[in-house]
């Protein structure tokens, strides 16, 4: 996968731009806080997803990665928070779309799978009904066609005896099987974008391997773009083409997957990579990032990572750095002010 795309880029670097599936510009998500102030969970995020690409959005808890994905789905209720900026799918603006129009897109053009397969299926409805519902909502298929399609989808996600499983309830299936059902449901209407929010975090490692394989297979079969939200750098290295690292509501680094792992630039990315024990290497000691993950609203000015940064400059405490472009890599850090150019 990765190598294919790299080859493609080398041959024809311009061609990819027209392939933009999703463009997110200046995305700000803010929640009302005490005393009429706002807390920004996502702060001026820009990115684009190209067709048939797998992009990972990486970060620790509370960095804003999940909320970003929910905003793309239009699943942040108006009374809960404001979503500002532009989210365009195939050049069509999604932010501000009427609820009815948005419902036609959810499940059909963009679908999503979640972290907890155990609780993500409705316990009182049969599997067949739950998958069938999404087909019924977005196509004009007859009852019989829906059933055929449902069984076909269950076969695609490699569930044994699909004609029996459609009459089962979620609690009769294991976590791995439920996540397969979620994937079948998400892919049933052949969406152009699949958002996978920590799809394997709740699963055992041998099951995780099965699910990641399955997602890769289906992506090729269905020509789907995947936005993978995760905290697990191992998973990222295994499935992503491109990676965006988020910290405190901002994208702090963006690069091709090999670049990110071989030449990480942002001190936070570097810190993350140094923090994880690696099965293939022997380190006596890990080199962690100091301090704690800050709570939202705690830091109001300067670079939010400076408290935990080994390389913090004077400037970092007063000015939040912009994203600097260094070749195809983007990094939000003052250390690269001279090397890169502001995007």
């Amino acid at each position: 996968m990765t190598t294919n795309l790299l080859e493609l880029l080398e041959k024809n670097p311009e061609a990819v731009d027209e392939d933009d599936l999703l463009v997110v510009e200046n995305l700000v998500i803010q929640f009302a806080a005490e005393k009429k102030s706002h807390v920004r969970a996502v702060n001026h995020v820009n990115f684009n997803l190209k067709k048939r690409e797998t992009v990972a959005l990486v970060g620790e808890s509370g960095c804003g990665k999940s909320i970003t994905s929910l905003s793309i789905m239009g699943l942040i209720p108006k009374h809960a928070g404001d979503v500002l900026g532009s989210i365009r799918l195939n050049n069509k603006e999604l932010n501000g779309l009427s609820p009815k129009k948005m419902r036609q897109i959810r499940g059909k053009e963009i679908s999503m799978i979640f972290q907890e397969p155990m609780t993500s299926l409705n316990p009182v409805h049969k599997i067949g009904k739950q998958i069938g519902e999404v087909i019924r909502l977005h196509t004009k298929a007859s009852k019989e066609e829906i059933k055929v399609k449902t069984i076909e989808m269950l076969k695609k996600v490699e569930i044994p005896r699909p004609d029996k499983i459609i009459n089962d309830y979620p609690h009769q299936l294991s976590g791995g099987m439920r996540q397969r059902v979620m994937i079948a449901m998400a892919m049933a209407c052949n969406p152009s974008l699949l958002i996978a929010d920590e799809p394997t975090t709740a699963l055992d490692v041998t099951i995780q391997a099965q699910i990641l394989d399955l997602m890769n297979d289906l992506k090729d079969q269905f020509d789907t773009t995947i936005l993978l939200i995760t905290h697990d750098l191992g998973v990222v290295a295994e499935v992503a083409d491109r990676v965006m690292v988020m910290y405190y509501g901002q994208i702090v680094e963006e690069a091709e997957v090999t670049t990110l792992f071989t030449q990480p630039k942002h001190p936070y990315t570097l810190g993350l990579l140094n923090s994880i024990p690696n099965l293939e290497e022997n380190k006596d000691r890990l080199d962690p990032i100091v301090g704690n993950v800050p709570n939202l609203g705690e830091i109001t000015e300067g670079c939010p990572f400076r408290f935990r940064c080994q390389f913090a400059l004077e400037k970092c405490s007063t000015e939040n750095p912009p994203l600097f472009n260094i070749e195809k890599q983007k990094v939000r850090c003052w250390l690269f002010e001279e090397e890169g150019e502001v995007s």
Partner: protein
Amino acid sequence: MSGIITSKNIDPSLIHLQKNNTKSYWQIVWGRLMKNKGAMAGSFILIFFIGAALLAPVLAPFPIDEMKMENRFLPPSLDHLLGTDEFGRDILSRIMHGGRISLMMGLVAVSIAGITGVVLGVISGYYRRIDIYIMQMMDILLAFPSLLLAIAIIAVLGVGLTNAMIAVAISVIPSYVRVVRGAVLSIREKEYIEAVQALGVSDFKIIVKHIFPNVLSPVIVLSTLQFGTSILAAAALSFLGLGAQPPTPEWGAMAYVGKSFLLQAWWMSLFPGLAIMLVVLGFNLLGDGLRDALDPRLK
């Protein structure tokens, strides 16, 4: 690349911690409660009624048993704000005095039931061997609708105010046992209990120091709500002629007498009933507010 170290060693969450004064769980709960409109409205009603009851001997415009035949069945007026009854007694004064009885009945019932229920519930939840017996007993008690149980108990003990209190208390016990047991069971599973067990802390200390304080929140909520329910049940018993007997100015008993004169003097039964409703409403509002304030999920 060597940066000038400015503030890298300061942990932002530490800054956050040092800024604020530390707040215990109960201080946080108090803060939440004060912001809860329902709870405040409930407290206001309760303070009003408790105050009126306590100060009844001083504030009541008339003595409770002052009969004036010429004043019979007077409708509400400036002299008698809530009217008078068949003996010309002032209903407002009687309601103020009656508040003492109703509130006392609630208090006694909730205290008896609360203490028994909490002890049984904690034992049942912590010592699983005894659990099955206690719960079977409670299931049997729960098989009687609570007012029916109270009526049955009065059938045995005989009619009267004290017996009504005991009857109500017994009928409330099972709900305490259930709630407390459920809370203990969920707390027992918490790792902090395992942690103190691993330290070798004695069962008694674990129950007193770690389980009980965590069971307290549901007990407080339940007691507040049961306070209201008990007053309601006690009033219903008196209304049926099984509890307080006329001429005791108990609210249920007053409504019982008033029932016979409903068409000629509606105020005789409707005002005592209204008093009951308001007090019970007060407890329910406060209980709901407490439930929200104590809800661990809101942390």
